[in-house]
């Protein structure tokens, strides 16, 4: 199967997972969940790395890549940490 088709398979199947994964979320977790999803969307960093690290990438591409890496990693680090701080606010379940 050509790569594009594989990508399509993977994409379609992932959409279903995306559809189901967060149903039933506790309302109090809406905001942390948004923060986490935000952090995860920092996955573009992988793209940024690929662009930047490509051997023989032109310098303009490298500059683009550098900024992309910078921005994406701010998001990644900031995102997970913020999520963590939000979750820390949640009192420990004293019971159960």
């Amino acid at each position, binding site marked *: 199967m050509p790569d*594009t088709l*594989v*990508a399509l398979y993977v*994409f379609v199947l*992932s*959409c279903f997972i*995306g559809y189901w994964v*967060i*149903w*039933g*979320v*506790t*309302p*109090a977790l*809406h*905001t*942390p*969940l*948004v*923060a986490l*999803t*935000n952090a*995860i*969307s920092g*996955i*573009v*960093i*992988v*793209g*940024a*790395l*690929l*662009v*930047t*690290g*490509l051997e023989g*990438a*032109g310098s303009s*591409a*490298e500059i683009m890549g*550098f900024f*992309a*890496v*910078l921005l*994406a*990693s*701010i*998001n990644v680090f*900031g*995102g997970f940490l*913020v*999520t*963590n*701080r*939000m*979750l820390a*606010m*949640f009192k420990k379940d*004293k*019971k159960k």
Partner: protein
Amino acid sequence: MELSSNTQAIAYLVSAVLFIFALKGLTHPASARKGNYYGMAGMALAIAATLMGAEVQSYGFIIAGVAAGAVIGTILAMRVEMTAMPQLVAALHSFVGLAAVLVAIGTYLNKAAAGQLNPVLMGELSAGIIIGAITFTGSVIAFGKLQGLISGAPVKFSGQHLLNALIGLLTLGLGVHFAMTGNMASLALMTLLAFVIGVTLIIPIGGADMPVIISMLNSYSGWAAAATGFTLGNNLLIIVGAIVGFSGAILSYIMCRAMNRSIINVVFGGFGSDAGAGESAGAQAAEKGVKSAAVEDAVYWMEDANKVIIIPGYGMAVAQAQHALKEMMELLEAREVEVKFAIHPVAGRMPGHMNVLLAEADIPYDNVLEMDEINSEFATADVALVVGANDVVNPAAKSDPSSPIYGMPILEAGKARQVYFLKRSMRPGYSGVNNLLFYQENTSLVFGDAKDTIEGMVTALKGGGH
């Protein structure tokens, strides 16, 4: 050590699975922290696998970028105040959008240099750029509104939707043109217009809806990542992008539902209805600076509380919510929450009004306390649940000599950690006096008929979902 592409693929798969677990984990408080760690692990694995893969050869810029990003991100995240979290998320978000645009352009440059351009690829690139650009400016506007840099009020004018649609079509057209011809001008103009759309889409939306909008923008950024994945032939980006894209959309929907709003209205800022027919209670409350909350929010605080004090009033009688209250009490007690009923001497419309109804619902007398007995307990209560009462908890009775209820002793509900009012509207009680307690920091209003609301709480306490 360099990873073989197969090993990398497996690492990517594991990373994707970790992200799925991360999202699932965040749906329940018990697993939320673990979920976040899964997410971190997934991200670390993804980055490591990418760096160790064959494609990444030069590390200078990368190390600089990641290091700088890590420092900035960490500082931002640690320094920000709890109340400014939403802004921060919006700001971080704009970075992802911009990064997506940069990645797409960088890819274009690389592919052009390698002479690997083709229409499909350029189409995918355009998609990545457009979505990324919208995410970027949209998030910037959201940030501005939340931070108070831009007025939180919706900016509306007639023909707005038409204008947006036109710009949108034009942008798409340019994208298609670029994909077919590789015309750089089209690319530039398309990017520019996409930035504009981000602004025009978000500017008409009110500040109160920003959380939903951020989740929606999140979804966009997921799609942008997926588009990038297609261009780069990277399955991890596709999987994670699609999951983030879809789940973000669903989350926006769920959030709207919890606030009893239509997602269409929120996303297309005041598309139709809201203006007509008289504003909803929630909207009125928002205008007056009163927080409204969903049933689940109140339940969230009650289910793990040590003590919940319920203050019934005339509204409980009107709604005939006493039986539902009994059931809620039992469910809370089963979770070892101490539940008490605080009865104000003039609650309701006749002496002993609340007592008759609570007795009818067979609520044990031991749980029913009069004002003098319970007032000292509010300070140790986690939640004060005001069920259709109003005047009897109004601090104006103590503080405002001009109010007709001045001098009446009140139930000190405001001293509880959280106060939830269950009522149908912003209307005052019998005395016609505005309730000052509404405006207190720890107070939220849950709008709706008290019986329906309590029944909703019962359902939530029994725990739907899986």
